[in-house]
């Protein structure tokens, strides 16, 4: 009887088949949520209406202050997917990145993430900072940033990219929502997007094969000699492209800078060399 009543309540709320979603913005630029808003077919609206109940997102939610934090706490007692963008800083008790102030107590992002991770059904690191610590941990790593999996000491799903391409995030969440799992490689990256390097599918591959090289940015030939990281970067850029699939850095006559790589940015530099 109680279960039936709960089911009725859930249908009334329109939440019947959808899992809750918490999107935390850790130490980073809040660019992964902006990138996600650029999603198309399906777009962010479809994501909100049909795929999940977005219960917590600092960029989008109506509530603020203590009420916002309470919504976060309430969601922890439900079935939810945890998405985290940005890397984790936990030095000085997390002082470099604060999540909320609640009943006289300051809660760090690190503390909130740890709390949510304990209960989440699935955990997704969204973007290179969350996946591999990224540019927030660039030399000399002023705030001691680590990846989400490094911070939690457990495996998570990693969707790197600076920012994460909305197509890759949407596809990953879709796999979880539709099939309750996603196939990943040894670095936790969904295989559907991180199987091949950008070089494998690059539209300028014939220039590379014929050793015809660009001399500078703006040229139409192969960018390898200018520092292109396509050959060592597994991602989906040449196929799925960016921003409603209309372009990507190589299409813009610039090299791939390997922003989805584990060692980005320090291992990618210089981004441009002549």
């Amino acid at each position, binding site marked *: 009887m109680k279960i039936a009543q709960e089911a009725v309540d859930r249908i009334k709320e329109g939440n019947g088949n959808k899992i809750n979603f918490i999107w935390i913005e850790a130490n980073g630029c809040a660019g992964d949520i902006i990138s996600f808003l650029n999603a198309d077919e399906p777009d962010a609206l479809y994501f909100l209406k049909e795929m999940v109940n977005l219960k917590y997102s600092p960029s989008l939610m109506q509530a603020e202050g203590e009420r916002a934090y309470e919504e976060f706490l309430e969601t922890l007692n439900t079935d939810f997917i945890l998405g985290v963008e940005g890397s984790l800083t936990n030095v000085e008790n997390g002082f470099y990145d604060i999540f909320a102030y609640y009943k006289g107590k300051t809660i760090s992002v690190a503390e909130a993430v740890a709390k949510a991770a304990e209960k989440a059904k699935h955990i997704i690191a969204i973007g290179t900072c969350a996946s591999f610590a990224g540019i927030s941990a660039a030399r000399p790593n002023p705030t001691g940033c680590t990846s989400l999996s490094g911070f939690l000491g457990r495996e998570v799903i990693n969707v790197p990219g600076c920012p994460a391409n909305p197509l890759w995030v949407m596809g990953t969440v879709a796999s979880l929502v539709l099939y309750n799992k996603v196939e990943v490689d040894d670095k936790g990256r969904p295989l559907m997007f991180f199987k091949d390097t950008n070089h494998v599918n690059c539209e300028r591959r014939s220039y590379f094969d014929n050793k015809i090289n660009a001399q500078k940015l703006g040229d139409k030939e192969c960018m390898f000699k200018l520092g292109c990281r396509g050959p060592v970067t597994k991602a989906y850029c040449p196929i799925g492209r960016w921003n409603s699939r209309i372009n990507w850095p190589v299409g*813009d006559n*610039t090299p791939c800078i390997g922003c989805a790589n584990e060692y980005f940015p320090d291992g990618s530099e210089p981004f441009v060399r002549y």
Partner: protein
Amino acid sequence: MTIKITLDPITRISGPLSIEVEIEKNKIVNAKSSGVQYRGFEKMLTGRSPLDAVYFTERICGICSVAHGVSASLALEDALKVKPDANGIKVRNFAHAADFLQNIIRQICLYVFPDYVKISALPGSIGGDFRLPEKYTEKINEDYIKAIEYSRLAHEMVALIGGKVPHSHGIFVGGTTVSLDPFKIIRLKSILQSINDFIANNMVEDINIIAEYYTEYYKIGGGTGNLLTYGLFDEMGEGELHYVNPSVYIKGKAYKLNAKAITEGTAYSWYSGNKISRVPSMEPTETDIKKEGAYTFIKAARYEGKVMQVGPLARMILSGSYKNRISTMDRLMARVLEGKKLSEKMLKLLEIIEPIPAVQERYTIPESSVGMGLKDSVRGALGHWLAIEKGVIKNYDIVTPSVWNLSPVDERGQHGAMEEALIGTEIKDVSHPIEIGRIIRSFDPCLSCATHVITDCREPYYIDLI
């Protein structure tokens, strides 16, 4: 009796901000704006290849990345003595303005609308002060949904020029890397026309509806009348493309900007020492999170020692496009009207952009040099200063709009612009202090950009921007 309220998180802004106010007899008597995130970008940039500054600094900010690309490119062109290609400048300005439109649509519709209208697509509620009749509530809910589409389209324009966005590649030293052709031009034009329609027909009406039902916000949250801009479309000649020159407005008079009058102080910031540094300062030092009295990672930017307000309202007033009136609602109104103005200018700009291949060079990095790049981003004045030594970045100094608007108290006891705007505000219901969030969001805070390390003042160099 004094009541202290801390609001954290302030949602629907970019990055983490905490606000503490003291209230006596329903009036805010003190306010502290506290940037509660620190990343240390300037420290990271030391020792890197100068050209990498463009793509590196874009990653400071997820919502205004193009602006950092523009300021970094300008600073590098200054340091490398590169004269950017004339068509390239136009293309870069077009992309810069396209990112303004993305920002303005998202900020007004996705971040500000929920302050005044119950948005059914969103979870949670901030309380019951929703005054609009049902038909307007429905209209604004529809436009909230449309804003998701039009802001995405604005970013499509940036991506056509920049390869991708956030964190574009095509805004670069020398102008741009994109090779334009007639198809790309007409594609940009068709997208821009639809955005222009949305802003001019939908958003202008929406903000007027909100203003009509929340008239007291024309009297709330003003703050300093001193205004500052680094200019926008100021290199586009004096004709119809021109927008606003680098300028300031102090105590009723307008002046040309003097870049050497900019300082940063740290009296109440979590950085060691409490010196006033001229900008740029030359040597990074350290954070000090145990510092007595400090309450933020944001420094106190000042101009001739004065608190300045930056952003769309400052630009609109300084360009003579908006009456000189400063309040919460005026900031929102000016932002929407600026979006309309810019999208109209972009349509004209597109007519003179040539569909030609990118003009790029193999740039040579000097053994040592300095450069400055000042340009307004959507939130206001954004400055990049770099020094090159032994062919790598020796020092990089960034002063963002949020460092102007959200700054803390300075060594003279002057509150930052947003703090000042909060102080004196009547709070109707102390248990639901909705006025605070509304005032804060009118400044469009970007905490992602508050990423500084303090630098000691040593042999500053001066550049006059006239």
